[in-house]
């Protein structure tokens, strides 16, 4: 090293976070039904929230995982244009979340484990969704999932779009696929708020720390499921086998806990999340009295 040479700025590292965002949204990426088809036998879909409608953006149903009865709940994006519209691009409305918690409570009643797949750009932001209480539906799911006395395994398979994904994600064990992302806000919306420029989404993706590794390091998920080389879209069968292994291990581990222990374990896990504090010392902060 020549000490006279001014220090070089290192080459800009490839934005891995943004690459993951693109992979998570890849048009060929396996969706909930692709995994159900490969992992579940005798699957029968359960429709409707018994209140308003059947939301095709969330698929629910009963079936068997390696001959164990399980309840499946997953957000479903479409493949072709017609299917995408049918699935509302994977953006659930309140009736979708209400259907989801309804079937989870059926599973709890009969002591069957629940497996949820998270894959949404976010809960649908529309007039009808607001009228029917999108916020209430999500909030209720969060509270009622916490109450379930059965094993709940949640897997983020693609886009973990904020509250819209979390509404299915209060699991005893929560996993992310290697190339999935999970974020409080989409990189585009974040960029639009901060830089008033949604084109800065790549920068926002890095700042938000939304990759599986990031969430694992922050203590917000329990593990990362590897994907086949190049990503799950390159080999759906292989990706499904990797998911299978994780579900098998997780079911076995959680199967050792009683209903009450499952509720406690789930609570303790979420109770600890985000405790990165400092003391704001040096000045009086008492504003009341």
């Amino acid at each position, binding site marked *: 090293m020549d000490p006279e040479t001014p220090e070089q700025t290192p080459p800009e590292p490839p934005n891995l976070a943004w690459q993951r965002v693109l992979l998570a949204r890849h048009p060929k990426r396996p969706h909930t039904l692709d995994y159900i088809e490969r992992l579940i036998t005798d699957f029968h879909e359960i429709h409707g929230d018994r209140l308003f409608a059947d939301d095709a953006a969330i698929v629910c149903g009963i079936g068997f995982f390696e001959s164990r009865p399980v309840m499946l709940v997953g957000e479903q994006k479409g493949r072709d244009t017609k299917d995408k519209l049918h699935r509302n691009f994977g953006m659930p409305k309140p009736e979708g979340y209400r259907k989801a918690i309804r079937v989870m409570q059926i599973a709890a009643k009969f002591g069957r484990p629940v497996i949820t797949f998270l894959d949404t750009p976010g809960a649908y932001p529309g007039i009808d969704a607001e009228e029917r209480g999108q916020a209430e539906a999500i*909030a209720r799911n969060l509270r009622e999932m*916490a109450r379930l006395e059965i094993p709940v395994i949640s897997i983020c398979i693609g886009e973990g779009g904020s509250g819209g994904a*979390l509404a299915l994600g*209060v699991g005893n064990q929560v996993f992310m696929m290697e190339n999935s992302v999970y974020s409080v806000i989409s990189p585009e919306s974040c960029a639009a708020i901060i830089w008033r420029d949604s084109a800065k989404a790549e920068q926002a993706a890095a700042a938000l720390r939304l990759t599986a590794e990031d969430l694992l390091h922050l203590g917000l998920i329990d593990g990362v499921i590897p994907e086949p080389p190049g990503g799950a879209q390159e080999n759906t069968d292989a990706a499904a086998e990797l998911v299978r292994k994780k579900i098998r291990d997780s079911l076995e581990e959680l199967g050792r806990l009683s209903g009450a222990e499952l509720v406690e374990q789930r609570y303790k896990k979420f109770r600890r999340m985000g405790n990165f504090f400092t003391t704001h010392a040096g000045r009086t902060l008492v504003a009341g009295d």
Partner: protein
Amino acid sequence: MSWFKRENNPEKKAQKPEKGQRKVKTEGLWLKCEGCKEIIWKKDLEDSHNVCPKCGSHFRIDAVARLQLLLDGPYQQFDTDLASADPLEFVDQRSYRERLATAQEATSLADALISAAGTLEGRKVQICAMEPKFIGGSMGGVMGEKITRAIERSITTRQPLIIISASGGARMQEGAISLMQLAKISSALMHLDEARVPYISVLTDPTTGGVTASLAMLGDLNIAEPGALIGFAGPRVIEQTIRQKLPEGFQRSEFLLKHGMLDAIVPRLQLKSYISQALTFFSGPVQ
């Protein structure tokens, strides 16, 4: 744990200019109400807790004023110095640390929530009030922890819980940590529910995003002040999605009441007696 490495940075706090000092009111004694366009005497507005004496429009008040409005007298605060350690080291145009320091200076709070215990018409209650002037009242790890501790105190003491929301939602600068606070608080509220301790959620202007989609909608009663903006998605996001103008009054308290999403709309000056009566219904008269 690398995110703690910059937490003790005393210079940063010391060198901040005394911004709060410039907030001396120089606008005069009269104000124009945005609601009715009438000229109102400032003192009248202050006496009525920022509710227009002429048309009843509700203007925002800060967290301290909230507690003064609802509690009988002095109250005990909790976790006053709990502050974010900036776990993501989030930087946009300004660093999150700078934003925090500015907000701390402006509000004299360590984060966007006051958590306290006091009495409301003689009844001991646990109460949390969000501070909308602190980064939009946004919820990160500190707010999540303070609310969860308040819920746990309610369970232990069996004192009713009141949370006054005023927030744009989850705090972007703490990423998925903010998001997980929704699950953390809602799970704690499940335990409060099981313990059958009353929880009254008060929604004020604005209550949107992750705060609405968790604690604000989970009260035994969810009540709102008149005219408050309440929703999941922000109006701008919805407009961009559906590409049409939103109907008049969309996402205001009255709209939510009409669609069955609120138990009641309660004017600010009646909040205290309303809550007191509700708590008497739930828990019986004050012992």
